[in-house]
């Protein structure tokens, strides 16, 4: 039972690759959401995405009590009243699902983040990847194009691997060449794909040490849950994943919106 009649709170996360909207009711239940390609018209996409999420929530725009935008295109959202960084929103969203001290690993389209929060949900430290696509969603997209396999098939392929092929390069473009080389050598595609996943994980784990519990968020994890299994195996740690990992930032923004409305 939701309480949308008393107004809702919207969070809009305009990422470099995907735009995400989350609508929360006053009890912080996720009652509407939507994910779309951000494209080149951030403002237009965020409008469309919001409308779709509102439709799902069964409320009109007038029901929005407060809206906060986040992400790379956060300043392009005409209907938001405030912006917050994606780092803050991911921490907020994640803590909402798992209220404990933890290290959050977010793998996005162009950014990776490692965020540490304490048991009160306060941020202690965060790191973002340097300006390089290594280890991000863009890396996997580029590789899927090189290998000519649909992005959505990567997860299943990686799971079939029996003998992972490790890639040595740090650079996305050189990794592409390396992948072609492996194919020439007759390596199996599933083994290469698992190697690609491993390379993403390596890039993230070298950003910061892991402390406390570990949670993973972001679109790449949402579409490639095998990555989470691999992180569990590599780090011998339990890894928490919220129900909609790709929406974590948008949910965090909506939670901030709720706080702002009650200020």
């Amino acid at each position, binding site marked *: 039972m939701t309480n949308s009649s008393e107004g809702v709170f919207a969070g809009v996360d305009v990422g470099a690759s995907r735009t995400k909207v989350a609508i929360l009711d006053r009890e912080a239940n996720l009652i509407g959401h939507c994910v779309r390609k951000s494209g080149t018209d951030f403002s237009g996409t965020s409008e469309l995405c919001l409308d779709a999420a509102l439709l799902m929530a069964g409320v009109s725009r007038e029901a929005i009590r407060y809206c906060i*935008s986040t992400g790379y295109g*956060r300043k392009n959202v005409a209907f938001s009243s405030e912006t917050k*960084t994606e780092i*803050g929103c991911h921490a907020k969203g994640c803590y909402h699902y798992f209220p404990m001290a933890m290290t959050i690993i977010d793998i996005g389209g162009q950014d990776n983040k490692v965020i540490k929060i304490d048991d009160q949900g306060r941020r202690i*430290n965060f790191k973002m990847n340097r300006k390089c696509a290594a280890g991000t969603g863009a890396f996997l997209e580029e590789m899927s194009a090189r290998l000519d396999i649909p992005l959505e098939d990567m997860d299943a392929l990686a799971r079939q691997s029996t003998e992972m092929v490790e890639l040595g390069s740090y650079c996305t473009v050189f990794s592409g060449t390396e992948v072609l080389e492996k194919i020439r050598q007759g390596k199996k595609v599933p083994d290469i794909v698992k190697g690609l996943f491993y390379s993403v994980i390596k890039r993230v784990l070298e950003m910061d040490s892991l402390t406390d519990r570990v949670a993973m968020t972001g679109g790449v994890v949402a579409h490639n849950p095998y990555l989470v299994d691999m992180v569990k195996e590599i780090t011998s740690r339990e890894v928490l994943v919220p129900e909609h990992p790709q929406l974590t930032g948008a949910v965090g923004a909506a939670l901030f919106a709720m706080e702002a409305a009650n200020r």
Partner: protein
Amino acid sequence: MTEEKKVTRKKIEATRVCKKIMADHFYEMDEAVKTGSRKIAWCTSVGPAELLRGMGFLVYFPENHGAMLGATRMATDLIPYANALGYSPDICSYLTCDIGSYLQKKTPLTMAYNIESVPRPDVLVFNTNQCRDVQDWFAWYSRELNVPLVGVHTHRDIGDIEPIQIKDIAAQIEELVPALEAVSGEKFDMDRFKEAVGYSRRTSELWRACLETAAAIPSPWTFFDATIHMGPAVVARGTREGMEYYELLLPELKQRVKDGVAAVEGERHRLYWEGMPIWGKLRPLSEQFSSLKACVVASTYCNSWIFDQLDPARPFESMAEAYTELFIVRDEPFKEKYISECFEKFRFDGIVFHDAKTCPNNSNNRYGMPERLSKKLGIPVLTINGDLCDLRCYSEEQTKTNIEAFIEQLEE
């Protein structure tokens, strides 16, 4: 749509005089080159400027030119010309943009002062206390222009300084004298040298006092202001004009403190900047920090022009001390302690480390120092990736987000 708030900041009155000193510095040299009236020495920023002044040279600082190339955003276009000659994009971008500027015959001096080119040197004088790049930089000009190259080789990565090290550097500085006499055609005059050391000493004391006004809450000025107002301390070191500038600036800053004038209106956060400035982005960064009510109150960089060990009574030894005791020459434990002491004085809430791609010498985030200091001081740290001059190494959006997120974190 959410727009960043534009912030207007109260101007520092002395700026006018600062600009005049900088302009005169270049006009004087331009004139000297044209008339042949004075000899010109090129000197690295922490080179033996006092000796050169004392020997009657006009002193030109290529690093200052590099900073100007960076600030005017000419650097990024000029660097590739030096790269093509074999000077890697990974080495000092002051070096590469300056050589690129020479090759392309383009200098910000033309736009700013209607001066066609940088002054041709009669001698090149370096000190490796900063890095090896300065020596290689000057060596290029030495070959290109057929100009003598002399210098001081400083001990690096020092913890406790041994008397032998000071003795060695003092001797090296003294040994420059005959070579410089040969260029200047004049006999070395000890009194004139001591006078220059005296001016430098006084300039340093005043400069330190100016920087320390930022310990006040709210701070009367920011790191970004200081990078501009340190100009005379750099280029007019060892002169009366240089000294007099800070006699003017200091009371103004003190008055601001007295009147409670804040450089950043409603100052809420105080930060320390570790590393080089990002010259081409000074204004946007300054504005972003201001709009977030964050004041960068202190930095390693601006402190690097405090040489208050200088003593006219012991000119060679005290110069050796000043140029060896410097932050950049020291080992990690010293640097850590130094920043911790700044923390006591300036009471900042966080440290921003600038990892300058082409200057490892001024990037102190690479061996775990941010993490150690964060733990020790109990404050958060942020590292941003960029460069002093090469904007190809800088991602504006990522940096903006990092800074914004850092301030959000301070507010939690």
